[in-house]
């Protein structure tokens, strides 16, 4: 099916609860980020929630922004891979082929959003968690890059089911793990090319939309909706 999968993340709804991070971890067989791994600064989080401060003291506000892979249409990570281990699917997903990856890590070096991760160690799970691994997602070995796939296993499964049933994939029939887990519905996933889809409508209707680092010209598939702040001074954009 032709689509350009994308996401709309409404920062006005995001509470920074990290549910998306945990859901992604469970869905995509991401190794457990132990304290030790964090100290090594090698934690793998396909989606992460960054906290930043806005305003001057005493009117300082904590803000949260979830950052998954932007799935750029003109992705800087793709052209630097010597072996085509990262490429663009015809549905606009920036995909990583683990079997081809040799681990030059240039893609990660060239990614301004820091959403590509390297497996420095062989991934390990405690005995009690071995049976919770998702059978639809490959477990990556050490020495390869990995990243957000927009839960491609869910896309493929839904497409196959739709094909069996002889119908089109419906908008909202499935969603990514992060969007599914979000308690405030801040993350919405869907086909950006379809004007009838929920993301399509949100992207078209909003006057709060922006892309992260849009100035780089990579055309990210993730659209952020700006925080509504009644206390914000006029010149900073008041909604």
């Amino acid at each position, binding site marked *: 099916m032709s689509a350009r999968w994308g996401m709309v993340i409404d920062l006005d709804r995001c509470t920074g609860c990290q549910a998306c991070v945990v859901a992604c971890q469970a869905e995509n067989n991401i190794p457990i980020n132990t304290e030790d791994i964090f100290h*090594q*600064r*090698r*934690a793998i989080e396909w989606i*992460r929630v*960054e*906290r*930043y401060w806005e305003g001057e003291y005493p009117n300082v506000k904590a803000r949260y922004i979830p*950052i998954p892979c932007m799935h750029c249409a003109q992705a*800087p990570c793709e*052209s*630097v*891979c*010597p*072996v*085509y281990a990262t490429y663009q699917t015809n549905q606009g997903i920036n995909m990583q082929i683990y079997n*081809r*990856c*040799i*681990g*030059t*890590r*240039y893609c*990660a*070096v*060239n990614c*301004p*959003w*820091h959403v590509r*991760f*390297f*497996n*420095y*160690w*062989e991934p390990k799970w405690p005995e009690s968690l071995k049976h919770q691994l998702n059978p639809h997602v490959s477990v990556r070995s*050490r*020495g*390869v*890059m990995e990243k957000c796939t927009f839960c491609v296993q869910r896309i493929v499964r839904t497409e196959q089911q739709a094909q069996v049933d002889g119908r089109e994939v419906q908008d909202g029939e499935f969603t990514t793990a992060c969007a599914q887990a979000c308690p405030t519905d801040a993350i919405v996933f869907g086909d950006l090319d379809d004007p009838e889809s929920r993301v399509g409508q949100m992207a078209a209707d909003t006057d709060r939309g922006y892309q992260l*680092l849009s100035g*780089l010209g990579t055309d990210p598939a993730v659209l952020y909706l700006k925080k509504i702040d009644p206390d914000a001074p006029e010149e900073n954009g008041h909604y």
Partner: protein
Amino acid sequence: MQERHPLKGEAITKELLRPLNQTPMIFWVAVIILGGILTAFAFAVGWMFYWGLGTTGLNTPIFWGFMITNFVFWIGISHAGVMISAILRLTQAEWRRPVTRAAEVMTIFSLLTAMLFPFLHTGRPWRTVYWVFPYDFDRGIWPDPRGPLVWDPAAVFTYLTGSTLFLYTTLIPDMALLRDRSTGWRKTLYTILALGWRGNERQWKLQLVAGILLSALILPVFVSVHSIVSWDFAVSLIPVWHASIFAPYFVIGAVHSGVSAVITLMALMRWLFGFHNYLREEHFDSIGRLLVVVATGWMWFFVLDIIFAMFTRDPRELVVMEQRIFEWPYAMLLAFVFVFAYIIPVPVWMFQRFRRNIKIMFWTSLMVNVGMWAERYWLILPGLERKFEFTFMWSWYRPSIVELTLVFGSFALVTFLLLLFSKIFPPVAVWEEMEGVNFAQDIQVGKRTVHATIREE
């Protein structure tokens, strides 16, 4: 004009071939020490292959560290060979004669060492060779030529092939000389390598033409190799890496460190092999003068790189530049680079008295390379530490013991290979030296007669 002591042909041959026949105690001491370091190097490589890159100090935003720095450094050193032999050959600089062989060999060994590092540095080295150089053409899957990581091995291997051919062309007459003067396995080896050299006029002509052709052909490669290495960084989006000045800047930096390394090597050869009659003060003098120009050119680009960053007024670039220049530890490192690679050596090289002092030349040239290693680190690391404004992913880098062993091991490897080479091949080209003697003549300067070469034809 090169002054020289009149030397007899047979004496030259005997003296220059001495390292092949005599093995002083210091040689064995060096072999044992270097062998020890190389064992540690091999162990570190094995350890890293077995446990993975987790054993390095690399982390999430800092995916490249000591190994890439070391790669750039050794590629830089390799630029000495062509600088000395090809350019000086084409410009007919007489003083190059005793230096060319050593410089060319250093080029080849440092290129081999340099190429080892990107390979070790990949996550799955056992796959790297296969994917970057696919031999299984039936699959129809090729390397991606859009990326600099494919240009890079192509450029370096072209350079390696060119330099090896060039070195071999200049080795042939010496191989024939050795063939006629040796017995046993050496005789067999030299006979094969001499390719039936008889030293007749046609062979000399062909050898000369091949030498000139190869030096002319290598020249563009020489410029392109380090340009392409610089594009490994410059074509990326990283602030401060993404600079058009990187290519010429890296090339001149490479010449600076490479030619300094040749001085270090010359001083070592003079001491170890007793080549006082060949590697004379005037050679150090000439190469020192060359270095003053090269070092100043490098400094010019160094300053331009900073000015260009300010000129664009890109805030991301300015942030990293500020960190590089004013913040610990990079401010310290910057001062270190400045002092070691320019402020101390260049004023010293301005005086002929110092240029003709071998000890001073040895230590200043060594200093330059310490400074230039630090310069590469200074260029590469800060860009990664604070790449763009996502502060949660900012990090720092501390090399692990494995990476340190690899870096020290690479120095031991090049030194070890050079030592081995000097046991099998003459470290100074005998035929070049003889040719130089033939060109020399007694020249009347005022009341004094000087045995010197004005210019070769």
